[in-house]
């Protein structure tokens, strides 16, 4: 069997989704953002929703998401994506509307918008990239930073008396009447990536069928901010993030 025999369109089993264009992504090598972008592109393509999806970008490293996925996007002010998505979904109820937000965006500056959109049960999907840090601005402490974890603004590690405790937004969201599907996933290996894909697909379907707000937290790495290699960052995440942010579905009212 020669190489030429194998490299043939009919033998193609994996490629970058076509909805993800060829613009080089500005993310650091190995950043989880790229991985989740790829999944979002695959899902929208598979759902044949390319022309009927509106994504809301955050402020944070994913601020340029609109450059990479060829769907309609709106760039919201920092933390205001759920408010923006509320308006969009109410005006275009037949559209798939989702926000894509970091932890600084979703769990800090936008806390009010996040909680109230979910409490109102807006028919939107929220993808929440929790890398426990403000990646874009240089790795400052976020509400999600783990106890003892060192960042640019807590160089001796996060301490409860000074900084309070890491905020579990996802568990909090599960207590709100308006939410229908709440899950926490990750993208550090093939099995985890496949589970995250299923979760985001379900959240997107919930937006279309109007079941309420869905939240998919993706426990992620910021290897640059954590000052680790991408492979080390995944290991560090497994050892340190997963015990505090355990993976799995937390709420699903769509089964009933």
């Amino acid at each position, binding site marked *: *069997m020669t190489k030429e025999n194998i*490299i043939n369109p009919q*033998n193609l089993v994996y490629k970058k989704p076509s909805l993800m264009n060829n613009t080089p992504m500005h993310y650091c090598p190995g*950043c989880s953002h790229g991985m989740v972008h790829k999944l979002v592109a695959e899902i929208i393509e598979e759902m044949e929703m390319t022309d009927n999806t509106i994504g809301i970008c955050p402020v944070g490293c994913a601020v340029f998401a609109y450059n990479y996925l060829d769907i309609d996007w709106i760039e919201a002010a920092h933390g205001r994506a759920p408010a923006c998505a509320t308006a969009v979904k109410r005006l275009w109820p037949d559209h798939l509307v989702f926000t894509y937000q970091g932890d600084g965006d979703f769990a800090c500056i936008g806390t009010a918008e996040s909680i109230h959109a979910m409490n109102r049960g807006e028919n939107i999907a929220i993808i929440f990239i929790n890398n426990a840090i403000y990646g874009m601005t240089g790795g400052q402490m976020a509400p999600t930073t783990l106890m003892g974890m060192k960042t640019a603004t807590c160089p001796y590690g996060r301490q409860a008396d000074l900084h309070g405790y890491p905020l579990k937004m996802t568990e909090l969201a599960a207590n709100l009447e308006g939410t229908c599907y709440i899950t926490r996933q990750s993208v550090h290996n093939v099995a985890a990536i496949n589970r995250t894909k299923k979760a985001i697909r379900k959240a997107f379907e919930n937006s279309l069928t109007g079941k309420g707000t869905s939240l998919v937290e993706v426990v992620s790495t910021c290897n640059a901010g954590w000052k680790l290699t991408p492979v080390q960052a995944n290991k560090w995440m497994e050892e340190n993030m997963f015990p505090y942010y355990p993976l799995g579905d937390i709420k699903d009212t769509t089964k009933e």
Partner: protein
Amino acid sequence: MNRIAGIIVVDTERCKGCGLCVEACPKKIVRLTEKSVNKKGYPYAIQTESELCNGCTSCGIVCPDGCITVYRKKWKEEQV
């Protein structure tokens, strides 16, 4: 006998040398270049012993930048 063969094609200019595909390959046949870099200055992923590849797609799936295309061909030995 049923045979299976895979091969990967890396978009070496898009690759950022993160090494996640190297880690993900169960056959340990993906590595980063040691002496050459792409136009961005990154070492890039290459497949070493393509005859061991079964086209499992793990390397492609984990690549955050979508740099890897995977091909897989199945055939019966006597047909060759």
